[in-house]
Structure formats: C-alpha cells, structure tokens
C-alpha cells in the first residue's frame, strides 16, 4: 500500500466544484481516497493544487511527427536534454524527441496527452512512439474522414455497417476517437485537388463533406465512444473560412440530444478567419463565439498562436501545400493509401506580421468571448500554432489583461487597431484555468478518472508554487508563467514524478484505446470485405492490425455499441 498526503493546498477541482478551498488530498495506490493514515506528506500550503493537466490535441507521436523531426535538425541543435541517471537524452524544440516530450509535459504538471492524427495504416508507428513517450497517459485518434470504406458506407447511408467498420477500426488500430481532417478533401488531394466547402462532392466518390461529418457523428453516437467526433474543418487556414466552421457546427445541430456535445471542433483559431483574401483578412472570433454561446452541442479548443519558429504539421495535405506556396519553406507531403494525407512546413509566426498577429488575437478572443470555459479548451495544436511548452504563456495571457497588453504593444499596428481583443477585459480565474486545461479536457474526452480529484479518480495531480491569496495574479503575470513552467510537484498515479520542475522518477504511462463491444468482428462475418480490404491496401489484412499487446501499457476503455447485427 502506497500512501501520500498533499496537505493544505489551495485546491482547484472544477468537476467537484471546489474553487480554491484549502484542503488535503489523500492518495493510496494510485487513486484519490478519502483519507490516509501514514505515508509521505507534501506540504502544499501557499500552493495551488489541481488535477494533472490533460491535453486533448497535441501532435506528439507517429509518422507525421517523426517526419517533422527528421525534416528539421535545425530545430534541435540548440535545444537539448542531457542524459541523467534517471532520464534519457533528447532534443527539442518544436518537435521534441519522444522521451523529451514526456519529460517536458510532466515538468509543467501535465499527465495525459492525446495524439490527434493517427493514419490507421501506420498505427503501429504511432503506438511504438507512444510507448517511448514516458511520464504521461496517452491515446491516439485514427483518421477516418477520407477512408474509402467510410466514404462508401456513408454514401450508401449504411450507418450500422459503417459503425461496425469504425468499431473494427478502433480495435484494429487501438484508437481512441474518430478524427476527421478536411473531410473528403484528403481523398481529393490524392489527385492534387480539394473540396471547396461542405457541399462540394468528393471527386470519384459522390459524397459531400456534410454527409461525411453527419454520418460519422451518427456512427459515434451508435458506438457510444467516450469522446465525440474530433473535427478539423474543410478550408482550414483560409480567409473567410468561418462560414465553413459555422456550417460544420450547424450540420450536426439536430443530431444532438440532451444538450450533450456531439462534436469537438479543434484548433478553432485556424477556422475563425473572416475576409476575402490575406489583405482583407480579419478575425471572425465574434461570429464563432456568438454561435457557440447559444449552442451546446460543440466543444472547441483554441490552437493558440505563439510568436516563435515552429513546425506546422497536419493531415490536411492541401492546406500544407498552400503554406508551402506562401512561405517557400521546405515541404513534406505524405499521402497514405485509402485513408489520408499529411503535410509539414516549418513556420515562423512574427509579431509584426498582420496575419500572424491577428491569428494571435483570434485564439485569445475565442477563449475570452466564449462564456462557458467548459466549451473551449486550451491548446496550441502543438506544434502547429506553437510548442506545448508555451502553455504557461497562454495561461498567463488568459489570466492577465496586463500580459496581453504587453504583447499587444509589440504586435503589428493594424492588428492593434482592428482586433476585438483590445476591448476585452475578461481574465480567467484559476478555477477557469483548471477547467480549460484539465477538467474540461477530461470531460470532453470522456476520461472519467481524469481531470478531477474526487475519491476514486486517478491520482494524477499537479502542485504549483503560486499563492493566489498573497499575489494578485493578473497584475503579476510573470509569477503565473513561472509557476506553470515548473510544477512544484507532479504526481502520476500516486507517485511523485517531478519536484521543482525536475524529473525525479521516470514512469511509463498508459496508452488508452477504446475497445468497442460489438457482437462480431465485421471482417470475420464478411469474407468479401477482407478481399476488398486487400484490394484497397498494399498490406495483408492480418498485418494491418495492431496486436493486443503490441506495446507495453496498452489500456483498453470499453464502449458498448448499439449496433444490431
């Protein structure tokens, strides 16, 4: 029996409605318990105690991330991690090596991170990397929005069969949620084309993005997956795309029941652009916020820009090609048969650039104008809008108008003049930060034992050296950044793994996947399908599957599907 007591901290546990009360948190055998008798005690007086950080969307592992690492040795040279007795060496900056990724998350007090773009054909790759990413629990979302089977089932309106296929997919790839990236557009990209909007049919497939989104949303409901569909919209990164964003949210409006979210719209900053072109480009955060404020079927995450040299990488091949055309930087494109594409382009966000500076304001405007913090989660779409190591900064911007103003002084003049952000006073409280970085994330993911400190929860806890009683945080932005950069303690499954921002114990972390309980394996009942599979792919059916214990620490979460078959 291993016990631990965290005494006298200011506890922020929004799922249990605890807002900064001074409390003790007791831990036994990796879980939060009522009380403990003996064991180690951490004196957290004058410190903030929160559930461990959760990240719903961060590109940390898999084929695309690794191509990014390979593409950019210049990203690594000056940001290195030395080997220690406890930890492996590695490199940063925007695309850290796997070990370094785990350590850096943990040092900031994060304990769960989701990789949001796994090409199913290369799922083994993603899992091999996740297995080498220590300190945090993980999961990965298979890309399904341009998969041929999915497109064909949905075109024929065979939702049950499609659900059975997706259920098989989750098991086959050890996936956690349904991911759609530029639905249908990636198939078109196979021949260098794209779709224009959600009603533009996919070439050769006679189905529209709208039908794909609605279809997979229904499938998700049938399967009862813990997370909603996770959507990267069509037209991402294009001026005027907020219209597509609104349409995308609207198109599933009437599938919603009992006010529960049924869609997660990711890195929304990149999807809230108004204007006709880059010259007339401006923020559409108000339009998006207005919609989200009056609907309850979507959750979003920010995709907040930080001004730095980073690496953009998405499954959205055509979008990445556009970025390559704009920047002339080096460019990777990698299309995956029958499923998806991907692209990578290094990118520098510059303060003095009107578009970049405006993008910086859009992310914050969304987070500050959407009233309910459960609806918009904190991310940088790592590393697309900036590396996850910038979270302390983003937290600071949300909590302190002063911090925002300090940046505003230095950004492009036109942005300063035009951006709605200048007029926004709202400042997040620590309670709201705990929602945006933990509770809301875990809730959206359906991870019931994460994101809170109630009895029975996983003992993933972070303690920050920050005293909200003594310091006025909004006036002291540096104090916020400093505290969140280096957690005083990070506790993973009841073990102290980080102390004063240094790793003191290296642990592996689990990989969650959703085991959908259906009556039978679709491919076992349909031999025809296996033949189709081997026509569609250049690998054998059996070799496609990620075996049960392919990597250590795989942990299934079960979902009970409502498929009649």
């Amino acid at each position, binding site marked *: 029996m291993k016990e631990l007591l965290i005494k006298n901290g200011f506890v922020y546990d929004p799922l249990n409605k605890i807002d900064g009360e001074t409390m003790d948190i007791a831990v036994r055998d990796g879980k939060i318990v009522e009380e403990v008798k003996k064991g180690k005690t951490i004196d957290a007086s004058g410190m903030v105690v929160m559930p461990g950080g959760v990240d719903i969307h961060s590109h940390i592992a898999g084929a695309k991330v690794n191509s990014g690492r390979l593409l950019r040795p210049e990203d690594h040279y000056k940001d290195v991690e030395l080997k220690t007795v406890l930890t492996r060496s590695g490199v940063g900056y925007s695309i*850290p090596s796997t070990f370094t990724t785990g350590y850096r998350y943990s040092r900031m007090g994060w304990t769960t991170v989701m990789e949001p773009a796994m090409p199913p054909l290369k799922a*083994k790759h993603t899992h091999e990397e996740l297995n080498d990413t220590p300190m945090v629990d993980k999961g990965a979302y298979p890309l399904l929005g341009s998969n041929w089977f999915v497109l064909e089932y949905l075109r024929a309106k065979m939702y049950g069969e499609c659900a059975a296929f997706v259920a098989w997919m989750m098991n086959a790839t050890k996936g956690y949620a349904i991911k759609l990236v530029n639905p249908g557009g990636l198939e078109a990209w*196979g021949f260098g084309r794209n779709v224009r909007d959600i009603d533009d049919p996919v070439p050769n497939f006679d189905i529209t993005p709208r039908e794909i989104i609605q279809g997979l949303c229904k499938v998700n409901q049938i399967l009862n997956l813990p997370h909603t569909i996770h959507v990267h919209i069509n037209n991402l990164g294009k001026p005027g795309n907020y219209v597509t964003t609104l349409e995308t949210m609207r198109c599933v409006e009437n599938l919603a029941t009992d006010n529960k979210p049924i869609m997660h719209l990711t890195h929304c900053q990149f999807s809230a652009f108004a204007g006709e072109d880059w010259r007339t480009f401006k923020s559409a955060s108000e339009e998006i916020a207005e919609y989200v404020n009056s609907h309850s079927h979507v959750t979003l995450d920010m995709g907040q820009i930080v001004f730095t040299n980073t690496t953009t990488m998405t499954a959205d091949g055509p979008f990445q090609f556009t970025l390559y055309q704009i920047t002339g930087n080096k460019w990777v494109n990698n299309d995956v048969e029958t499923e998806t594409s991907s692209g990578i382009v290094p990118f520098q966000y510059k303060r003095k650039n009107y578009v970049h500076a405006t993008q910086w304001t859009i992310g914050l405007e969304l987070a500050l104008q959407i009233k309910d913090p459960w609806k918009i989660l904190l991310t940088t779409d790592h590393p697309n809008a900036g590396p996850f190591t910038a979270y302390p900064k983003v937290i600071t911007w949300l909590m302190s108008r002063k911090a925002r103003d300090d940046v505003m002084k230095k950004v492009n003049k036109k942005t300063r003049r035009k951006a709605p952000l200048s007029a926004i006073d709202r400042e997040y409280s620590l309670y709201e930060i705990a929602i945006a970085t933990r509770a809301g994330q875990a809730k959206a993911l359906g991870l019931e034992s994460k994101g809170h400190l109630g009895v029975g929860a996983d003992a993933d806890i972070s303690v920050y050296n920050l005293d909200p009683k003594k310091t006025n945080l909004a006036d002291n932005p540096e104090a916020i950044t400093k505290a969140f950069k280096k957690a005083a303690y990070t506790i993973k499954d009841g073990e102290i793994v980080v102390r004063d921002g240094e790793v003191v114990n290296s642990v592996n972390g689990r990989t969650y996947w959703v085991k959908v309980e259906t009556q039978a394996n679709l491919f076992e009942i349909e031999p025809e399908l296996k033949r189709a599979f081997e026509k569609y*792919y250049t690998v054998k059916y059996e070799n496609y599957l990620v075996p049960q214990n392919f990597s250590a620490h795989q942990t299934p979460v079960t979902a009970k599907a409502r498929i009649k078959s």
Partner: protein
Amino acid sequence: MTLVKNVTCPICGTLCDDLEVEVEENSIVDVRNACAIGEAKFLNFTDPKHRNLKPLVRKGGELTEVSLDEAVERSAQILAHAQYPILYGWSCTSCQAIRVGIELAEEVGGVIDNTSTVCHGPSILSIQSVGIPTCTLGQVRHRADLVVYWASDPYSAHPRHIERYTSFSDGRFQESEWEHYVTRLRGVLGKKRLSRASARISMREVSIPPIADPKLPPEFETEKRKLIVVDVRKTRSAEIADFFIQVEPNRDFELLQALRLLVKDEELEVDKVAGVPVDLLEEFADILISCNFGIFFFGVGLTMSSGKHRNIDAAIALTKDLNYRTKFAIMPMRGHFNVAGANIVSTWQTGYPFAVDFSHGYPRYNPGETSAVDILQRDESDASLIIASDPVSNFPRNAAQNLVKNPMITIDPVVSPTTMMADVVIPSAFVGIEVEGTAYRMDCVPLPMKKIVEPPKICLPDEEILRRILLQVRQIRQTGGKA
C-alpha cells in the same frame, strides 16, 4: 506440416508481406509468392557453412569459442572503456533491437549509425534541405498513371516492386499494365531470338535493337499507365519500360535541373543536356506535366554518383515544381528490409535519423562528421559494435582498415569478412524467420516480422543480446569500471 501465411520477407525494402511458408519439423520446406532472392533466403538461411553458431572471443590472436556470458562480458568491457565507440549496422534487424541499440549507444557515449550512411543517407540530407512530397506505395498502385524509375533497377534489386506497387499492379483508378507488357515482351523476345539465331549463323555479335527509340513510342498517345526508366545504362528494368532515357554517367544533376526549367515552360540555351537531346527532354517534360499522378523512384545510382545529395535536391525540387502543375511524388528505393525502420526509430528517440553522436551526453548530428565512414576515415574511433552488416567489405578501404585495428564486436547470424576480423562474435537469430519484430517498408509503412521457426539455442534475438550487454555496461559503470 504447417503453412504460415502473410509472412513478411526480411530481405529488401519492398517488404512483401504476402509470403506463404511451409514448415516441417522446424524447418522451412517451401516458400510461395517470394521472388527468387526472397525464396533463396528462406530456403538456405540455415546453411551451417555460413552461420555463426558459437560465441567467439579473440584470445592471443585467435577467435576462440567461449560461453555467451563471456562474450557479452567482453563486449561490455570494450564498450564501457571506449572513448569514442561506433555502433553500426541496424538495417537488418527489428525496431525493437534498434531501440535497445540506441539506449546502449547513449549509455556508452558512442556514435550510432546505420547503413543509410552508405546508401540513402544523401536522400535524407536532401529531405532535410528541401523536404519531400511522397506517399505510400498503395497511392502509386491506385493512382499513378506515370511511373519513373530513375537510376534504380527494380527488376534486379527489388524484384516484386513493379508487380506489387507500380505498373503491373491493379489499382482503383489504374489498371495493371501486365497484358500490355506481355505483348511487348513477346515482340522483344522475338527480336532477341532472331538476333541470337543470326548470331549463331553468322558467328558474330548482333546487337539487340532497342525497344524504344529515342523518340516517343506511339503508345504514349493512350491513357495507359506509363513506365519510364532513366539510367546510365540499359538495365533489365529499362527493357520492360515504355521509354528509356539514357543519361551520361554523373550528369543526372544537370538533367534534373534542365527538366525543372522545362516544366516551368522556360527554354534551354543548349541543345543537349547530359547527352540527351533537348527536343527529347521537352517531350519528357510534357509527359511529366500531363500525367494525373506521377512518381519518381530513385536508387543509389542517384545518391552515390557525383553530386550525391544535391542530385536528390534537384529531383525533389523537380517534384515540388511539378506539384504546381499536377500531382507528383518521389520515393527513395530503400535497400535493406528495415533500413527505413533504423532511420525512424533513431529519429523518434534522438531527433536524428542516422549518424547520432552521444559522446557529449545528448544526441548530436552532423553527417560528414558524425557518420561512421567519416569518423573511420579520420581514424577517430577506438572501438566498435557491428550488428547485422558487413562494413569490412562495404566501407572504403582506409575506413575498413581503421575499423579492424581497434576492438570490434559483431552480432550477426552469418559469417562475414567482418565477423572474421572481429574480437568478439556473438551469434544471433534471423529477424523475420527466427525472431519477430517490426520493420518499416520503404514508404515507412510498419509491418510485423514473423517468427516461423525456432533458432538454434545459442542464437538469441538481437534485442536480447543488446540488453544483456547494456546491463553489463551499467554494472561496470556502477562498480567504477573494475578494469
């Protein structure tokens, strides 16, 4: 007798995963679907003449049989005391073994480098300078209406590549060119027979007429999938191509750059580039632009000829330029079955794909400096561990000489010039036949390698051997290096 299906072939980067292997009493009696090279491997790998079956340590100049523990202990001693050891090979083993190899390299502060350093290393350097538009092989099978093999001869080096992924494969949007080919082959064979016959009669050499004249064949008018070969000599692959362009040796860079101008609709001021008439090049450029999905496959003929990675820079730049006009991809024809995996694992653990130097306690990368051949040519290393590869035969002479003059550990299932020169020889099991694991195809698709038969008792998996050495090294370190 059992039939093992869906077996992945542990030979070349084509990584065919449809082999069927018949096993009788722990020995392989038949193989289906493999090419001749693959089949030979499965049927002959047990040949004791070529197999390492004893752990050996050099004592008084002679390789002497020892226990496995002693061989491991000796290896650990060598590595723990070395100031700049090289850990080299890695492209013919599993990703699981490579993972441990990197950990070992980090522990001993050594340099870990894989065989891409002598094959497609330049391709990687090139990706690092310009990027790469590429795809998985299924995209080619389904979509490519234009396939170009440049300085690569799949017919000989990747025998099933064409049949599985390109011209002779059947895709959703592209049909197999097989029949088309058979008709053409009949014509060629007819001509060959004729010329052989006439040679016999007249007793003198009669040259076989080329299949494609330096003028486009009429088939190019049709919508069919086209196969083009560009090379310095007429290879087997060139013979089955619709069209062959012969480039002067070491002049690919010029040819590629010239094509880049042409696909931008600009003009050339010369009438010949790299021996190819400009008219012909213009037609070639037209074909490139007018396809719906084109792909370049390139081989070591491009990476290892004059210009090296700059040839690939030009080839990739051409591919990027073509994407403004149509859809185009490019892919290196990786040789060893898991050389791609060696790059991939190294990249996720260290940030860098090969030539990683841990001597300062963190990964450093600078091919030319931290690459095995260069280190050896400068004679800077003082010990080495070689796994599943034969640098004594493959490295430049002075590099090989400097390699063997320092303590060398080898882990290899087979006897090679390298294992014969080694100070420690540790026999290992064959990945993909006797041990399972993961390997990555040339297009970076991960595939499972199977264990089909039991290895000889003394032959452990590479992963296990490396782990034992690592453990020993750590023990030596903890006790302050008892030597």
